[in-house]
């Protein structure tokens, strides 16, 4: 029988994370192509993993591997890498597919470094063979690269939001296998030593239905007052381009783009933003984009659905005034 294909599946609150379903989708296709069984390595505390292997019914998983260790938790990045490396040694997979999330890339890169294997991050499609032919994302998805991955065990992560996940089908829940791993003090040395809970309160940019983005055209910290006012009226949140965070007009936490946040609101209003690719990768998941810009040839015009041409400092307050007028009028 052909060697298995591993999917690294992260379990959160009893179910596989959404990105892990994308991982399973790619790994399952690969297993069908190579004829190997699909095996899920559960990345979760052993107690959670044991009780949730059944949640993998419908994804074509033959075996769910539960890693057993007394002190290993998700707070040990090297511990997990060592554990996954041992499971690879024990079962000899042809490929290991992980998630291209921050944690997923970190984990598989640590595995790769331990095993002296290459690794491809943020893959969107795979063709098996002696060498695997991959398509992977560069520039946060603004550019695609076709490449060869040539290794005895192929390690790759799946780019988030790039693969269509189907519905679970009638395949049975996987058989569960427990695999005890041996970790030394060095494997457990790097670990989370303290934690702070998320702040509550204002509407987070990542969750807001409407996001008002400001760019260089906003001109200053004070210039964002007009955007804040409009955001208040529509229950939205304010973000910005790298130019405004680099200038110190807004904190970096408000930056949208390749090295900031990825947002997916119902509406993104881009004010005084030119539309550089590194900004667009952060906002292109918005359902609708409205651009407000003095330049009707700015690159943002080829990704926006609607545009208003002119000075944002005249237009944005006029929009706020119009909303007020209509709500006063009844």
């Amino acid at each position, binding site marked *: 029988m052909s060697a298995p294909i591993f999917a690294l599946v992260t379990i959160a609150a009893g179910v596989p994370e959404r990105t892990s379903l994308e991982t399973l989708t790619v790994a399952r296709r690969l297993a069908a192509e190579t004829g190997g069984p699909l095996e899920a390595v559960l990345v979760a505390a052993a107690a959670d993993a044991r009780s949730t292997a059944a949640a993998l019914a419908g994804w074509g998983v033959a075996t769910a591997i539960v890693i057993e260790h007394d002190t290993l938790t998700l707070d040990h990045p090297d511990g997990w890498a060592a554990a996954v490396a041992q499971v690879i040694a024990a079962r000899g997979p042809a490929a290991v597919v992980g998630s291209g999330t921050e944690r997923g890339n*970190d984990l598989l890169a640590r595995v*790769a*470094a331990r095993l002296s294997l290459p690794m491809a991050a943020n893959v969107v499609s795979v063709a098996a063979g002696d060498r695997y032919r991959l398509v992977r994302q560069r520039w946060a998805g603004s550019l*695609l690269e076709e490449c060869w991955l040539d290794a005895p065990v192929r390690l790759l992560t799946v780019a988030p939001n790039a693969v269509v996940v189907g519905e679970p089908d009638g395949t049975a829940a996987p058989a569960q296998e427990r695999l005890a791993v041996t970790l030394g003090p060095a494997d457990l040395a790097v670990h989370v030593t303290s934690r702070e809970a998320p702040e509550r309160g204002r509407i987070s940019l990542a969750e807001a239905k409407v996001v008002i983005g400001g760019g260089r055209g906003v001109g200053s910290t004070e210039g964002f007052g007009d955007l804040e006012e409009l955001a208040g009226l529509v229950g939205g949140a304010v973000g910005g381009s790298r130019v405004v965070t680099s200038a110190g007009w807004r*904190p970096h936490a408000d930056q949208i783009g390749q090295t900031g946040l990825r947002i997916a609101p119902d509406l993104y209003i881009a004010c005084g933003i030119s539309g550089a690719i590194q900004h667009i990768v952060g906002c292109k998941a918005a359902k609708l984009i409205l651009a407000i810009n003095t330049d009707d040839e700015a690159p943002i015009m080829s990704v*926006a659905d*609607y545009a208003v041409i002119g000075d944002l400092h005249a237009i944005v307050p*006029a929009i706020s005034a119009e909303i007020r007028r*209509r709500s006063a009028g009844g």
Partner: protein
Amino acid sequence: MNILVCVKRVPATGGRIVLTADGSAIDVRFLGFTVSPHEECAVEEAVRIVEARGGSSTVLTLGPAVAEEQLRDAMAIGIERAILLETDGRDWDPVATASAIVAAVRAQEAVAAPFDLILFGNESADSGGFQVGIRVAAALGRPIVTGVKALQLGEGRIVARREGAGGGWESFEIPLPAVVSVKEGINLPRYPSIPGRLRAKKKEIERSTPAWQPGGLEKIVLRLPKEEVTAAEVIGRGPDAAAAVVDLLDRIGVLDR
């Protein structure tokens, strides 16, 4: 504290990417060059730590001779020394890149004080492999924390803080020597001063030419993703467009709340 920062020269692509006719590379004829914002922040962090604690800072890149520009940019804001691992312009994959960096670190540490801290960007701007720092740390047997947005220095230890997977923050206390990969937001990099630029121009750069090696990942061709290119519908000009915008907001239901 002796600190090493690793940066990668990349084209400063703007509104859209244009590829060469054979799809082997980005057409850079009309582009400037830069490093990832994460790496700019790594450079700034090194300068700040040395300003606060003393010691020395070094910047390293593996790239073509012209990558000297990015080394001088780093020296212009206060990095003292620079190392160029010169390539012939071919792509080096992450395995090969990491092994060249490890060899350079070992060569430096054989003749001078070891690096207490090696800083990387969380991922390179262009290829985004998410791994060179991790590979270097593993080869050197040093701890690494990735995605770091705050660093606190103690005696022989550091505390590295990053965003938690489910929000909030998590911190790792690790002993030095250590490796950290940082993300933009850890600091706000300064702009280089004119005297800083002039000083950087005159500085020596230590050069060597490591031999290219295959690493298991090999580029075949580049292509642009198929994306809808829309032409935005202009719904108005100037403040008179407010009514049309509010109609739009109304239509998509954002005024209901």
